């Protein structure tokens, strides 16, 4: 299968990309790494008149630190994130989660920003971004910049706070130095989408959990935080018994989908089991 005909634009600055986007309006698709977009175009599920490729814009790719924040350019590839010492040291959950995205070839091309803006509910990275309280820097017409917290970034299926005519340029992650982390992903086939996954990161003192953040993948139309589990884990020892008890409410308030991989109740069951496994592994890592 090949996509329908389109015009290809490869702007070399954010300003040019915004101008191209403003001119094309509805008829354009932004291409970051293209690893989700190209399958969609090949299957002709979408047929844009223009494809705007961001890969030739310098400055959108790279990882740096600013005080207590790790700053990741939207066009940074998954493999750059996985290989980054800064990310490993200060945002271990993000590193471990991104390492589970698709397969090595896809991770060489796919980008952090592209995956987050695509906002597939079964996509891995949203749960980690939510759990780590990431912030998203969005630039719009005329270069106007705004910053959106993760709690407001994910709006619905395949929909984020990034509006028509806007681009995501940066993801900012508050440092979680020394926190243990685990992304527990449940799949039928190694490189497939998560049926359910849990992103957990915890801070330990002695054998006690002093802080916990839990993000859930594919338990609804957007990534979710299991806040009741986070609260229940505080002050608990990282034992099987205590973590199991705290994880029992992981699926509370969620409305996960039913599909060929499992029905909604099964996903709720999985959320509890995977949360227990993720937290125990995070506490031991």
């Amino acid at each position, binding site marked *: *299968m*090949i*996509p*329908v*005909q*389109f*015009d*290809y634009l*490869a702007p070399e600055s954010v300003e040019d990309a915004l101008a191209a986007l403003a001119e094309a309006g509805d008829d354009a698709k932004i291409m970051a790494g*293209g*690893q989700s977009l*190209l*399958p969609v*175009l*090949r*299957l002709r599920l979408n047929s844009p008149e223009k*494809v705007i*490729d961001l*890969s030739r814009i310098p400055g959108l790719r790279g990882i740096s630190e600013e005080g207590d924040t790790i700053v990741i350019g939207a066009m940074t590839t998954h*493999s750059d994130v996985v290989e980054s010492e800064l990310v490993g040291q200060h945002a271990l959950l993000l590193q471990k989660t991104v390492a589970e995205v*698709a*397969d*090595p*070839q*896809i991770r*060489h*091309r796919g980008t952090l920003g592209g995956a987050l803006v695509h906002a597939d509910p079964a996509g891995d990275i949203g749960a980690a971004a939510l759990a780590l309280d990431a912030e998203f820097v969005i630039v719009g017409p005329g270069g106007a910049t705004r910053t959106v917290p993760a709690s407001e970034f994910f709006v619905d299926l395949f929909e984020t706070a990034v509006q028509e005519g806007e681009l995501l340029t940066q993801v900012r992650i508050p440092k979680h130095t020394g926190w243990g982390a685990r992304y527990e992903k449940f799949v039928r086939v*190694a*490189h497939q989408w998560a049926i359910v996954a849990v992103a957990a990161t915890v801070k330990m003192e002695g054998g006690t959990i002093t802080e916990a953040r839990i993000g859930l993948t594919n338990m609804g139309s957007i990534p979710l935080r299991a806040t009741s589990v986070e609260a229940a884990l505080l002050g608990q020892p990282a034992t099987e018994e205590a973590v199991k008890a705290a994880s029992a409410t992981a699926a509370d308030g969620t409305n996960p989908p039913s599909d060929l991989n499992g029905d909604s109740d099964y996903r709720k069951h999985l959320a509890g089991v995977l949360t227990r496994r993720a937290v125990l592994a995070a506490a031991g890592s």
Partner: protein
Amino acid sequence: MTRITVQVDDESYTDEVEPRTLLVHYLREQLGKTGTVVGCDTSNCGACTVHLDGRSVKSCNVLAVQADGHEVTTIEGLAKNGELHPMQAAFHECHALQCGYCTPGMIMQSIDLLNENPTPTEKEIRAGLEGNLCRCTGYHNIVRAVQTASGQEVAS
């Protein structure tokens, strides 16, 4: 049409392509490099894996225009002066193929794997090849071939 210049297997090519042309179709149909195959057409199977600037990619999931100004290595560019690449030799030696359809992609991904991790464990090899499907071998001899190419002992 868009004009692109791409370095493929150490030769420079300049061609007119439609923007919608996939890299794999450019390689096969315009350059005649049919060693790289199309397997699933859904970016699952990895049969079309090539190296783009030294890193493995699925060439059905890259546009030819995105390769403009970049360097591509295909399975056809591995053997030098009639000598098989060590990974090709290891696949041959370990009987790491049956029908052979997945083999070009398997070999390209296996080389990428060893570039990143020269002495992987069996588990790391299996994880590193997660994006490449083989419907014949059960993967066992493929894993042995990668172990062999990495210079590690292979349990018989």
